[in-house]
């Protein structure tokens, strides 16, 4: 276990280094990416641009620039080229919003997917199962920006049932917090519900024919106990794995569209805006942020997996 964690930490450092290098250099070679020109405003003179270049160190060798920027990442001095606001503070401001969205949506999609998957499996081949299959396929096919915009327009703007985007802090008013997040949670969860319920359904149908399930019935357990203790528990193992990975991916950028559609101003939306302005410091920081969560959740998933299935050994 200790060795596993150390190895994973090394892996994390390596991944984040590679991600930072790639991101930094990509944003420095794309055309029209010269930050000094963009920062200088409309119709700048050559001297003004030159001054900005000097001041920000854009005339240095790229490697030197990279090292300087990474130093700032670690000291927390990273500043946006355009807003001049500190990047660290912006991310910390966005983090609870992104986590609120991701955690709520993850719980929602897992819960609903278990219900749908279980019900579908127990009615396999019957009308309810076929109906849920179609619903799931529709759910998988709905893009977040489209369904999110529709929900916002019809349920929020037209019907007035929900607020028109925005975010209220949990500590300020938990009810209002949840009220503002219902639509974003749903929009983000729909895709995953469709996907997870299909995976769970087929896992359950595979597990139900296992010999140990027959053993469980031969013990005299009720059908419910057999389902919950033996079938569901074993069918959930792959789903829980997926859940962890997807959660990491959602925190690390998968929620960009949802955040933007509902104007939640989370880390994802911040990243999207930074990319639009070719603003390298926030782009780099949010990319590292995403990589961190994805690698972290990967490691957690491996540990949880070894706990759920004792045949797996961490090494």
């Amino acid at each position, binding site marked *: 276990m200790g060795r596993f964690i150390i190895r994973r930490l090394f892996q994390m450092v390596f991944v984040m280094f590679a991600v930072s290098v790639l991101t930094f250099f990509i944003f420095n070679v794309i055309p029209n990416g010269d930050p000094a020109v963009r920062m200088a405003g409309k119709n700048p003179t050559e001297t003004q641009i030159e001054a900005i270049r000097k001041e920000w160190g854009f005339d240095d060798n790229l490697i030197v620039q990279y090292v300087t920027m990474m130093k700032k990442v670690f000291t927390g001095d990273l500043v946006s080229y355009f807003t001049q606001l500190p990047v660290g503070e912006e991310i910390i401001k966005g983090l609870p919003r992104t986590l609120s969205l991701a955690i709520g949506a993850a719980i929602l999609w897992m819960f609903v997917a278990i219900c749908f998957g279980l019900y579908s499996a127990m009615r396999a081949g019957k009308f309810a199962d076929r109906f849920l299959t179609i619903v799931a396929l529709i759910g998988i096919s709905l893009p977040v920006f489209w369904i999110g915009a529709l929900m916002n327009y019809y349920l929020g703007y037209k019907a007035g049932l929900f607020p028109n985007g925005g975010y209220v802090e949990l500590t300020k008013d938990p009810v209002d917090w949840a009220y503002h997040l219902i639509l974003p949670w749903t929009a983000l969860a729909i895709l995953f519900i469709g996907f997870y319920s299909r995976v769970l359904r087929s896992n359950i149908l595979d597990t139900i024919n296992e010999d140990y399930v*027959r*053993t469980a019935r*031969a*013990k*005299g*357990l009720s059908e419910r106990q057999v389902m919950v203790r033996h079938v569901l528990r074993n069918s959930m193992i792959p789903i829980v794995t997926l859940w962890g990975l997807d959660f990491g991916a959602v925190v690390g950028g998968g929620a960009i569209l949802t955040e933007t559609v509902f104007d939640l101003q989370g880390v994802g939306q911040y990243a999207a805006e930074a990319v639009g302005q070719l603003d390298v410091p926030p782009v780099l920081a949010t990319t590292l942020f995403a990589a961190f969560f994805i690698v972290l959740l990967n490691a957690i998933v491996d540990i949880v997996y070894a706990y759920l299935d004792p*045949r797996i050994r961490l090494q």
Partner: protein
Amino acid sequence: MSTDPAATGAPPSGEPLLTVEDLQVSFATEEGVVQAVEGVSFELAPGEILAVVGESGSGKSVTAMTLMGLTRSPNADFEGTAHYKGTELVHASEDQLRRVRGAEIAMIFQDPMTSLNPVQKIGRQIVEQIQEHEALPDQQARERSVELLDRVGIPRARERIDNYPFEFSGGMRQRVMIALALSCNPSVLIADEPTTALDVTIQAQILQRMRELRDETGAAIILVTHDLGVVADIADRIAVMYSGRIVEQGTLDEIFYDPQHPYTWGLLGSIARVDRPRPDRLPAIAGLPPSLANRPEGCHFRPRCPHEFGKCMEVPPLEARLDGQPAHLDRCWLTPDEKRERREVRPGEIGLEAKSQAGAS
């Protein structure tokens, strides 16, 4: 063979524990209705070991599992009865069956590698069964599990109880399955090919242990197997099944020394024996068992039987056809004298071969 009276032939007397009458099981499949069990009747006395022998598809496992309601499914159809201590099992409600399963009738399955839940400790799996049927606190249920594991021959049972199934060998897992089956002191133990997945030395140990446990606990055992060799060691009585029917039934000695049905001759003739010169290849019964969905008329064994004659188009009833052996039943139209003559393919050797004088077509 031991000198144990129960093992020497005569079935223990007294009221039968389990009475199966005219059991029929069929499954509706896409290829049509498959009649897996076709009128099986037998009795099981307390403490008796009954072996049900037959090849794959003979309906022996379906018969055994039906007694516990494990073959129930929307496409299955059941007829006949199985009475166990005042409960009719074939048409019992799920709740009635649940009280019987594990507590009164327990089952040991064929493949110990897959029959235990891979992600639960074995102790928990045994405790689960005990607590399902008895209101026993955790600690006591655990104590009993340790005792059970010890009794079935698992060394260091107190430590091993916290191991997962994958940490045991196949033979040890089958011992765990036996401990699980015995955990609520059942009166009947159904063992469905308990040693098929194990190697030969382990097979002998497991069977020996099952016999000893029968002697200690008095549980009757239904041993389902395709291997007559396994049966010779421990059975009191044998029922030979072929294609959904019992074709011959009798005590161990009756079946081994005076077999009446040609199919039984074939089975006996295909056992490798150390007391005979080794043949180049073991004799096998020619042909294949009939498809369950499309069975021959009359005697099901007819197409593979070299002794077949006109009368075989009628189904022979399962009845006693020998004087002095009232419990020895078979389904063959040949006369006892014809049988005696035809089964002896070489002096002192029983088998299924067409002899020149057996010219039936």
